[in-house]
């Protein structure tokens, strides 16, 4: 049976109800907190860090491999740079790269998936075989190949990862569009004489946004991980720009003696991935309370 709705809640009440649902889960709040902290660091990092000169490649050979202390919170690396400063600065690269990857993948994959799902027939066949083809290529290898061909650097890396990322969005959106296309309100619009573009933009896409947003949040974490992985194998962002993956890669040679050079960039990656995953799960609960339990 359906519970009767209260006498017309306002939009504000709906928003409050969503927030109430979101707050029910402490983990989503933790995810949101981590993401917010990351955002603050990414935006304001270069002003709040203790050694801003280290970000642009400044070194201090007198202070090599100092363990964590009140001066160097996360210790220093082989060039005497403050690891805390580098990790904070790395947040900006990771977030920009992760966000870039997810946005490009969502828009490109979303358009391809929506077109395939809505048009059907041979257009669907062609686009989906293309998507399958991209999915069968190991994503990291593909990204490596593209990065190798175009050269290292932030924008090439983002492009490279996005190219291996969009098929996931294409599949998701295609499935959602096919399901929504059969909904009665879409048929109602068609019966009114609405054009295809109107049906797709006004009726179908707004109703498939929730899963796309959820996937974007969940994927942010993995995209950051992919960025770090490319940085780790040396085809990502060029030094001296600090990036978590390349910091980790450089630190690898000094384990276990100078553990702090590796552990803090590693923890940064861990928390960023965790934060976006928790937030994504929270959003899923928020958009689709039935998925819980």
């Amino acid at each position, binding site marked *: *049976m*359906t*519970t*009767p709705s*209260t006498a017309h*809640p306002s939009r504000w009440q709906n928003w409050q*109800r969503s927030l*109430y*649902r979101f707050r029910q889960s402490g983990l989503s709040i933790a995810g949101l907190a981590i993401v917010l902290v990351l955002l603050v660091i990414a935006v304001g990092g270069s002003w709040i860090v203790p050694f801003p000169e280290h970000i642009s490649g400044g070194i201090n050979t007198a202070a090599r491999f100092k363990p964590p202390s009140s001066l160097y919170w996360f210790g220093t690396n082989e060039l005497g740079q403050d690891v805390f400063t580098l990790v904070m600065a790395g947040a900006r690269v990771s977030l920009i790269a992760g966000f870039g990857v997810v946005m490009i993948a969502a828009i490109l994959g979303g358009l391809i998936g929506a077109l395939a799902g809505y048009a059907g027939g041979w257009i669907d066949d062609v686009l989906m075989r293309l998507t399958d083809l991209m999915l069968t290529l190991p994503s990291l290898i593909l990204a490596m190949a593209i990065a190798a061909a175009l050269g290292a650097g932030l924008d090439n890396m983002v492009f490279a990862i996005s190219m291996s990322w969009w098929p996931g969005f294409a599949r998701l959106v295609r499935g959602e569009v096919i399901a929504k296309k059969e909904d009665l309100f879409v048929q109602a619009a068609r019966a009114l004489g609405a054009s295809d573009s109107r049906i797709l933009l006004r009726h179908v896409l707004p109703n498939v946004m929730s899963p796309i947003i959820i996937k974007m949040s969940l994927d942010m974490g993995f995209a950051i991980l992919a960025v770090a992985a490319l940085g780790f194998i040396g085809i990502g962002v060029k030094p001296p720009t600090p990036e978590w993956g390349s910091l980790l890669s450089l630190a690898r040679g000094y384990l276990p003696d100078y553990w702090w050079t590796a552990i803090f960039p590693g923890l940064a990656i861990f928390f960023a991935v965790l934060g976006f995953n928790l937030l994504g799960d929270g959003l899923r609960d928020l958009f689709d309370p039935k998925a819980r339990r």
Partner: protein
Amino acid sequence: MALLSIENLHLSIPSFEGEARILNGVDLSVERGEICGLVGETGCGKSLTGLSVSKLVPSPPARYDQGSIRFDGQDILALSENAMRALRGRRIGMIFQDPTTNLNPLFRIGEQMVDVALHSMGANRWSGSARREARERCIAMLERVGIQDAHNRLDDYPHQFSGGMRQRVLIAMALIGRPDLLIADEPTTALDVSVQAQILQLLFDIVREDKIAVLLITHNLGVVARLCTHVAVMYAGRIIERGTMADVFNQPSHPYTKALLAAVPTQKTRKGTLQGLGGSVPDPYLPHAGCRFAPRCAWAEARCGEAVPTEADLGNGHRVACIKAGGTA
């Protein structure tokens, strides 16, 4: 004592908007051999009343503030989950509205039925002889609900059955434990009228032969008129009128019952003369005083808003909760 007796049952479910008072003092009893129709509009609490009898309302969050449900003398609300599991499927059977969603599409009908049969027999699932006996029972029950060639159809998957046939399978599953009480929630709503007529006849025959009690939850007054011996009309979590079907339908005494009956077009109704019922079901979150139907009632007076009317007995078990029909406030 009646087989099923619900007394003054109150159920509330807390949520963001506050406490939803779903049931506000339900009084109802069903004897063996009776088919009691529970009718009312969407959101009146009829489905939750049915679920409460087999203790299937998740609690918490739901809370039973007052009242009791007695089944064959046992206090249902006090029983443990284990004890309830022993009742469900054995002594209390249930049928739900949509026959397509209540059968697992991945398993053969037989596998699903044999599981239920074994549970009802209390037998060891792994014993070969028990399985064979359970299978025999399933075949006998399917034949009884009118499925031909039951022996072979047991190995079919749900999608190989039509909607009406699937509902028959579900009825067979509900009956296989030879329950004393059957709770049927909108069992024919998803079916075509001709199939509905067959299912109603089937339920009628089963009740007459086995003397089981049935609580039939429906919004279709025509189904009640055809099948039920008794009827209870529910509004905003209370039974506002109950009695034998003939008494209630021939002399509806609560204004709400009258309004419901007047809203169904019959042979004689002329275009434009149908009596709708204005307003909507009251908000379960708002506290209230007096008769909850008063705001929609054409005969309401000032005193209707003062206290909740108690039931007045009009004779022959025909009770009505309205001060204007003899109830006291």
